[in-house]
């Protein structure tokens, strides 16, 4: 069945759509009350984040917009040391969208929420004119224990930089489809709860964390350098990257420093904690390829040490990361 404007009327078609697809996938006592707002328990400081998801195609190798909508928001909560607890989901659906696809997305979202330990407590659906697109907004709420203070301004000269796995996979997976390049590269789209919670329970002193999404590691480090009283140095040959993604970058003239990921984090930890943090991440789900890639240094620049022994400045991503050909 295709979505029509009637599904957005607020009448019977709307409630059927919500009941059969969205509530059915994420059913729980809070959501099932179907009240105008969710009332939930809370007792500590809370972390809140919100994000819109507009990826095309809606499903891709390694994930789909539903899984992405949970991972993106949950990972943002985790990066401040919060334990993710609740999530809200708001869909904007263009007429012409296929209800089978919607069901798939809603179920994938629910499954990922379960994996990440978050409950879907509120939602909304709107239908607009268009040609079958689906956009999702999720807002996440997490709890932060007393004494936890993870933020980019905490980075100190001498700190170690750890990347939780191979870079560029999500970007390459999405772009492969658009550029007619066949490969087995999968999006890394994943909730990073286990590795963050393991680091915290093992007592690793995490100074700052960021999930390395759009704009890539280069952009994240430039943002950190602005907020912190230090610069950063990366050893290019330490950056984890699969041979497939490296080959992909070569074809299109892309640089992995600026490629997006959806299940990778950068952790800045005290140098004395670096080995321990690395081991904890490597033992956690989605962290087996983690590596120490560099260090915080004096000054405010972000510098890449190339395998050749050269140095170059790293900037934020400019433009759109389009393939370079000529």
């Amino acid at each position: 069945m295709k979505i029509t404007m009637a599904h957005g009327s607020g009448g019977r078609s709307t409630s059927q759509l919500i009941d059969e697809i969205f509530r059915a996938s994420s059913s729980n006592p809070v959501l099932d009350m179907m009240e105008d707002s969710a009332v939930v328990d809370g007792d500590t400081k809370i972390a809140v984040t919100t994000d819109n998801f507009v990826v095309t195609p809606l499903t891709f190798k390694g994930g789909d917009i539903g899984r992405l909508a949970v991972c993106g928001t949950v990972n943002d909560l985790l990066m401040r040391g919060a334990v993710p607890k609740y999530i809200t989901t708001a869909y904007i659906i263009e007429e012409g969208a296929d209800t089978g696809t919607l069901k798939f997305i809603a179920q994938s979202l629910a499954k990922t929420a379960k994996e990440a330990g978050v409950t879907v407590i509120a939602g909304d659906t709107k239908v607009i004119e268009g040609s079958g697109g689906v956009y999702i907004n999720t807002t996440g709420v997490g709890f932060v224990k007393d004494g936890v203070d993870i933020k980019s301004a905490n980075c100190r000269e001498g700190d170690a930089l750890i990347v939780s796995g191979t870079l560029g996979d999500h970007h390459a997976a999405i772009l492969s489809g658009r550029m007619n390049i066949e490969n087995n590269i999968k999006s890394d789209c994943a909730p990073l709860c286990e590795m963050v919670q393991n680091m915290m329970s093992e007592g690793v002193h995490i100074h700052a964390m960021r999930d390395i999404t759009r704009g890539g590691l280069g952009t994240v480090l430039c943002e950190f350098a602005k907020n912190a009283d230090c610069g950063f140095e990366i050893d290019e040959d330490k950056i984890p990257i699969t041979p497939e993604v490296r080959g992909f970058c070569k074809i299109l003239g892309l640089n992995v420093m600026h490629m997006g990921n959806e299940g990778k984090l950068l952790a800045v930890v005290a140098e004395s904690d670096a080995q321990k943090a690395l081991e904890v991440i490597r033992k956690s789900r989605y962290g087996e390829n983690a590596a120490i890639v560099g260090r915080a240094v004096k000054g405010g620049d972000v510098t890449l040490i190339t395998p050749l022994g050269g140095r170059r400045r790293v900037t934020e991503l400019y433009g759109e990361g389009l393939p370079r050909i000529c």
Partner: protein
Amino acid sequence: MCVAAPGRVVEINDKIATVDYSGNLTKANAGVVNVAVGDYVLVHAGLIIQKISQSEAKEMEELFSMLEEMGNA
């Protein structure tokens, strides 16, 4: 001006080759180079522009000795 990547021909079908770059497959036109499956080739913008000769190490050695001669000339 011209990004070009080295890959290996894995299939060839009527002047259209499938080229493998570390697990990434693309179609490339083989209209100006005669290639066979297994050849290493250089591809620019969907066109195979040259076969890659595999004897570069030796050639570089010769180059440098040539360079020393030319530099001293």
